[in-house]
């Protein structure tokens, strides 16, 4: 029998606000333990929580990006449980009136090759709600250490419909989610720092069956590859269980990345009973149409829409747009350069082939941020102009680029100082061509026997002799003339 998997995700994303959700204690990743607390974070008696306006704004922005409905009223509820990661024994969350309802995330599935765009489709969302994060536990021996720095920081929980069917779709979803949230400056979405966390609900059913199978909740998916490997394994495990006549138990399982398997987490006999009720300390939130629409008006152009525009407006290939468009800063950089000199393809190639490569190896730890690059958009515009007007060859342009990258000097000055102007003096080039023909009898013989490619070896010799400054088009013409 053929089986089909059905997957829904619950993704937690930490908002990048300066302070916590219900108190103005600052938050920073990696701070010394228990230095980011106060009476609200510790849940001391009498402490009064007060909402963070920026967290509300950010959540509305996320909702608008993903086409959610933003209800006029949302409210706060207490979710009760006893666990030392939450000192007041309840977490403030949103139960029946979340800040965003419905919505969809556009995903791009893998293409048939790296340079071919894959199919796009929408993954449906159930809701997005805002809640406070909990503290961090470290287990050592028979004890656990508790650090409350993270407790109370704003988290959005994005809940999808059971709308994905394999690990590729899950990967595409997380990639798209991350791209959009980075774009809007909502969060850095670094899974290693716990800024983005993911649980998956997975079930399988015979293909064609409408009823969902028994679902398993999968936890401890700590990286994007962990999510994909965990989901793939769990789908396989469930199908194999069904095929061998076993039943799927409704349970929570943990992904063990080292062992490459999922392990049942011995759940308590009783189901969780969180006893949600409205938090009496916090008044509801009212979001007017005007406010909502003013936030919508500030929304940046989203990456997939930008990519479509880049195809149309600049005629750029997918291999280039798929690198530039997911990065807002980089696409703004590109468009600034193009606005100074309208040679989009060349400028895009400088960015993708030269700039990104140099940036990736220039940082002291990891890559150098674009903002710190000495190569500014106006440099690339000038460089493109020099090539376009045949002042320098594209080979020399790479050398000039490296010099700009080191010094931040203008390309015109570099070309002047280093005497890199292209040689278009036909008689001088003709001399070099004649020499090259004399020195490469083998290539000449091959070319004359009909192997057109052989001319490249001779061209290379001429280019070398001219120190890269001879105009390649002129070399080609002269060589063909001399060899005719």
């Amino acid at each position, binding site marked *: 029998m053929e089986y089909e998997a059905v997957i829904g995700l619950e993704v937690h994303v930490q908002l990048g606000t300066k302070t916590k959700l219900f108190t103005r*204690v600052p938050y920073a990743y990696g701070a010394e333990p228990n*230095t980011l607390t106060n*009476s609200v974070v510790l849940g001391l008696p009498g402490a009064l929580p007060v909402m963070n306006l920026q967290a509300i704004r950010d959540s509305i922005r996320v909702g608008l990006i993903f086409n959610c409905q933003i209800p006029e009223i949302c409210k706060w509820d207490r979710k009760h449980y006893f666990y030392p990661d939450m000192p007041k024994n309840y977490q403030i969350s949103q139960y029946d009136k979340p800040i965003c309802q419905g919505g969809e995330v556009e995903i791009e599935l893998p293409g048939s090759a790296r340079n071919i765009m894959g199919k796009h489709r929408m993954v449906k969302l159930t809701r997005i709600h805002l809640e406070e994060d909990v503290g961090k536990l470290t287990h050592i021996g028979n004890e656990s250490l508790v650090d409350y720095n993270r407790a109370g920081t704003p988290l959005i929980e994005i809940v999808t419909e059971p709308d994905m069917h394999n690990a590729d779709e899950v990967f595409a979803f997380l990639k798209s989610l991350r791209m959009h949230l980075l774009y809007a400056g909502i969060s850095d979405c670094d899974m290693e720092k716990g800024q983005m966390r993911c649980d998956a609900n997975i079930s399988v059913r015979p293909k064609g069956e409408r009823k969902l199978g028994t679902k398993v909740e999968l936890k401890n998916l700590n990286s994007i590859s962990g999510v994909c490997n965990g989901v793939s394994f769990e789908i396989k495990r469930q199908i194999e269980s069904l095929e061998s006549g076993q039943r799927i138990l409704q349970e929570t399982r943990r992904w063990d990345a080292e062992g490459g398997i999922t392990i049942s987490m011995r759940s308590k006999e009783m189901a969780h009973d969180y006893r949600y009720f409205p938090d009496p300390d916090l*008044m509801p939130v009212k979001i007017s149409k005007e406010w909502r629409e003013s936030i919508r008006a500030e929304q940046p152009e989203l990456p997939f829409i930008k990519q479509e525009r880049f195809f149309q407006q600049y005629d750029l290939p997918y291999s280039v747009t798929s690198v530039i468009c997911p990065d807002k800063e980089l696409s703004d950089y590109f468009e600034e350069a193009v606005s100074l000199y309208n040679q989009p393809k060349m400028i895009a190639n400088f960015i993708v082939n030269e700039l990104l490569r140099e940036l990736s190896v220039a940082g002291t730890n990891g890559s150098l941020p674009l903002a710190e690059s000495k190569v500014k958009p106006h440099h690339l515009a000038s460089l493109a102009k020099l090539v376009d007007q045949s002042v320098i060859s594209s080979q020399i342009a790479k050398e000039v680029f490296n010099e700009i990258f080191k010094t931040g000097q203008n390309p015109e000055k570099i070309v002047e100082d280093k005497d890199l102007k292209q040689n278009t003096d036909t008689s001088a080039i003709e001399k070099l061509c004649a020499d090259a023909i004399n020195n490469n009898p083998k290539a000449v013989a091959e070319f004359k026997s009909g192997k057109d490619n052989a001319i490249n070896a001779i061209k290379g010799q001429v280019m070398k002799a001219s120190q890269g400054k001879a105009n390649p088009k002129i070399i080609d013409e002269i060589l063909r003339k001399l060899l005719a």
Partner: protein
Amino acid sequence: MDTSKHKIDIDYVAQLARIELSDAEKVKFSGQLENIITYCEKISQVNVDGIEPMSHSFPFYNVWEEDTPESTFAVEDVLLNAPKADEDQIVVPRVVEE
């Protein structure tokens, strides 16, 4: 008052609240809790058609602050309430859920 409809599972309620009750307390509190629930049932005798459920008694909304950092507690103060501390963290019996 007829409390027969609202039987309280007192052991479950005590377990949720993490409190230990003596047998005498269990009897006493069961009765009290059942009375409270029966009292709340009065709402079902009232016609609430067309009335929006509310979570607060006053129509206040949007009590918030801008995202501007303020001061924090010193670690020494945080740990004053901790039964045991180590490396500036609070130490509790191991609680890993597996």
